[in-house]
């Protein structure tokens, strides 16, 4: 039985790592049926994905959104004017103050004594 010779004195008191490994293997062989089944399933799911290299994004052309869009010229014009009014009116001011608060937050996150991952999933 090999003993771990890296340790200083007390060699005789150390339990051989290989023996521990044997027992761990024994424990692994005794996993309950549910766990074994779950592992097999995990294996199969992974195998399903073996040949898929990169995900393919299918772009929506927006055609299926037609039912939402205005149907007549009159409606078109009204929609455009409405959009314009709302956007011009509110956007700029709102953006400006939002951006300042954002910058304040960003600096805080980037310099806090807690690491980034605490705030990022």
């Amino acid at each position, binding site marked *: 039985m090999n003993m771990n010779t890296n340790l200083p004195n007390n060699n005789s008191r150390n339990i051989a790592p290989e023996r521990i490994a044997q027992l761990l293997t024994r424990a692994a062989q005794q996993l309950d049926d549910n766990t074994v089944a779950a592992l*097999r399933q*995990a294996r199969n799911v992974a195998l399903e994905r073996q040949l898929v290299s990169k995900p393919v994004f299918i772009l929506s052309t927006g055609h299926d959104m037609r039912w939402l869009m205005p149907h007549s010229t009159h409606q078109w014009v009204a929609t455009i004017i409405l959009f314009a009014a709302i956007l011009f009116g509110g956007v700029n001011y709102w953006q400006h103050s939002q951006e300042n608060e954002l910058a304040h937050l960003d600096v805080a996150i980037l310099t806090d004594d807690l690491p980034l991952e605490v705030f990022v999933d």
Partner: protein
Amino acid sequence: MQGATKLANRTELSQFLSTVERRAYKQALYAVRNEHTALDIVQDAMMKLAEKYGDKPAAELPLLFQRILQNTIRDYYRRQKVKNAWTTLFSSFSPKNEEIEYDPLDSLQDEENQSAPAAPDDSLQQSQVIALIEQALGKLPARQREAFLLRYWEGLDTAETAAAMGCTEGSVKTHCSRATHALAVSLKEKGVQLP
């Protein structure tokens, strides 16, 4: 033992995963002490291996997988800590030692006694020893446990272990010797003698 130029096909990947999955699960379990999380980790690691390295030569799969597994365990472990922190943040209790969480490693002793298959040489005593070893493993610092398991259970050599852990070979040796020593101390305290 060449054939390293031949890329792994589905059978080879399947075979590899089936040989490593139980140990991978246990490794994760020792680290995160939660059966569902451990399963998630294994699933995650297997998928990453298959998706990113499924076309690598079969001989490269074991080390690649170990590296992915260790990183995944580490990620989950840290995420768990952060999640616990956030839960504490918005709870009305102070954290202290209020956790009465179910620790699968603590109750292993009972489980082994009840569900262990009746192999001829399988004694009650051995099951108890196994339970104690697993408990002791769970208490090791993460890096020590990682190094110990990779080196002695997965059978990687020092260089491979270092690659899987992302540290130097010197660190691996230090972690291993400390882990072995800590385990020995732990088991001796519980009166365990191994032949």
